[in-house]
């Protein structure tokens, strides 16, 4: 008996038990869809973060308080005892590295804004006068804050696109007054929409001098110091210089990453996360496979008489075996195909909220895995069926 014949028999049997076949497939469908969807999210987020870090330019260096460089667990990421940077540390670096390189102390925190009766909560990203140069952004109107405003702690603010649209719909905000945590600020500029990024939604953000932001948030700490090298070739030398400058003050308790290294760290973390998600989804696929085995075992004992008849008229061991294996594989592969379709469709819908990307390898993996599940969990019931004694099988009621 050839393969086509086995498949016809298998399809006929599955067709005869439509509801049961559909429910059995559901296990695989959910498993495969989960694998596709979760891997798509993982990959999508990874791509976006990679893109946003790369978008910053290849000559960026980030300095964090705390020792991250000894790997997970080593030193701990900025534990309580870790000393934080201050604006003075940034100024020291600026002096020692030279003015051709831009040093920006960065702080971020939550704020509430109010204009008239409109209020909203948002995030502030504050730096010094070089912030615009380091992080980019196109001004639609107005300007960025100046050095004098940073040193004076002037209450000036630049609005992200979302904030502007919410608080000043159809209106030029430049020169308007806005209440930030109850204090009056003057809007000096607004920037074009940029889309999501590493630090969250860049458009739902406001920018102001770090000196003002520290007062608003109530801290003298600086979250990170960003350094933009004059050319990408300076990055390595600069990293060494930065270590020399900061070591006397902080010992080991700080970390210096080039953009490339940052990228590597994020990719590693997100890659691990993606595999974890795939693993969790894989477990549901495994459960689906056990469902197939269960149903195939039921099917074999239900069809004992049929097996007896087939053997009586000349079916050999492998004829029966292949019939049942193909049945199981058909269930799992059909379930896999439907699962891939559902997973891909779900990923498309989710793109509205989370970046997703359906990759060929995830599809291939899910498909192969589901076929494998069918074979693995189908073989035992099929073996059982093929070993039935024809007489016992024919007598079976």
């Amino acid at each position, binding site marked *: 008996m050839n393969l086509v014949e086995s498949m016809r028999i298998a399809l*006929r049997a599955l067709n005869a038990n439509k509801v049961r076949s559909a429910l059995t497939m559901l296990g695989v469908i959910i498993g495969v869809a989960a694998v596709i969807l979760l891997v798509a999210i993982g990959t999508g987020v990874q791509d976006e973060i990679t893109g946003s870090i790369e978008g910053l330019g290849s000559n960026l260096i980030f300095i964090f308080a705390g020792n991250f460089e000894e790997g997970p667990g080593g030193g701990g990421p900025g534990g309580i005892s870790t000393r934080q940077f201050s604006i003075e540390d940034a100024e020291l670096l600026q002096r020692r590295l030279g003015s051709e390189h831009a040093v920006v102390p960065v702080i971020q925190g939550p704020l509430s804004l109010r204009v008239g009766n409109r209020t909203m909560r948002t995030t502030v990203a504050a730096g010094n006068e070089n912030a615009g140069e380091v992080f980019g952004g196109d001004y639609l109107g107005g300007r960025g804050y100046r050095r004098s405003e940073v040193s004076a702690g002037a209450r000036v603010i630049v609005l992200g696109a979302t904030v502007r649209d919410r608080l000043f719909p159809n209106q030029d905000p430049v020169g308007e007054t806005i209440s930030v945590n109850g204090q009056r600020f003057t809007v000096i500029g607004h920037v074009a929409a940029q889309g999501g990024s590493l630090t969250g939604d860049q458009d739902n953000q406001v920018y102001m001098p770090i000196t003002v932001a520290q007062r608003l948030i109530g801290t003298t700490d600086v979250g990170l110091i960003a350094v933009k090298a004059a050319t990408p070739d300076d990055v390595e030398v600069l990293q060494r210089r930065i270590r020399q400058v900061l070591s006397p003050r902080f010992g080991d308790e700080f970390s210096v990453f080039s953009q490339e290294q940052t990228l590597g760290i994020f990719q590693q973390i997100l890659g691990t996360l993606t595999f974890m998600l795939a693993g969790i989804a894989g477990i549901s696929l495994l459960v689906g496979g056990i469902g197939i085995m269960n149903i195939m075992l039921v099917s074999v004992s239900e069809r004992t008489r049929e097996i007896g008849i*087939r053997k009586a*008229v*000349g079916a050999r061991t492998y004829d029966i075996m292949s019939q049942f294996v193909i049945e199981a594989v058909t269930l799992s592969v059909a379930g896999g195909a439907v699962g891939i379709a559902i997973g891909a469709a779900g990923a498309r819908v989710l793109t509205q909220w989370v970046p997703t990307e359906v990759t060929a390898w995830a599809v291939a993996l899910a498909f192969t895995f589901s076929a494998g599940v069918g074979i693995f969990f189908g073989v035992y019931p099929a073996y059982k069926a093929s070993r039935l004694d024809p*007489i016992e099988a*024919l007598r079976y009621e």
Partner: protein
Amino acid sequence: MSETGGILSAKACDDARVVLEARGVTKTYHLGEVDVHALRGVDLSICDGRMLSLMGPSGSGKSTLMHIIGLLDRPSEGSVSVEGEEVSQMAPNELAAVRNRRIGFVFQSFNLLSRTSALANVELPLVYSGVSGSERSRRARAALERVGLGDRLGHLPNQLSGGQQQRVAIARALVTEPSIVLADEPTGNLDSVSGVDVMTILQELNTHGITVVLVTHDDTTARHAERIVRLRDGLVVSDEAVADRIWAAERRDAVVEEAGGVQA
């Protein structure tokens, strides 16, 4: 064939070939601590192109014997040969191939695949002998026409009467052109008219050269054959020719009338 019929039957075949032969066949079932001796040393030879009845009360071992000569079961001792080929030592797959090519089965309970059309049921043995699709369909049609069901090809078993189902089963048994058809109480589940029709077909097959073995406990059914082998307690107790053989085709009118009378 001699009237008295020796139990050792090489001589019983005269000039005809022995198509199926059992020698010293025993079958013992171990049920817990009790051994049940279903067959206790049976010799049987079946001549090519003849019609034979295996008769006996229930528990006589006739069904066990049929399963063994049909290669569905193995003897505990003794040997079985089909068309001169020793089969006792064959592997399950080899036995399956011999069943497929040389033996057709007709069971009391029909044993058709439900949810499968009459045509597909008849095609089944050909599927396992590797006959191509179109050839299979052609031969299955021919077999169904031969049993008078040429207009019921697409019907499912549950859309057919018992007699029609049994005729489908007969078509399935003969579609591979086997040398021997084994029929186990083929009329057991049928009304008398359908039973006569089935016996008519079996006798007709036999006149066309197919060896037919009937397994039955019923004396009337058994007398449709030309020879009756009686079993009791796992042994052959007699082997004799049928003096007043019944021809099903000749009885049909009488049976129909009788059945009609009962129904009316």
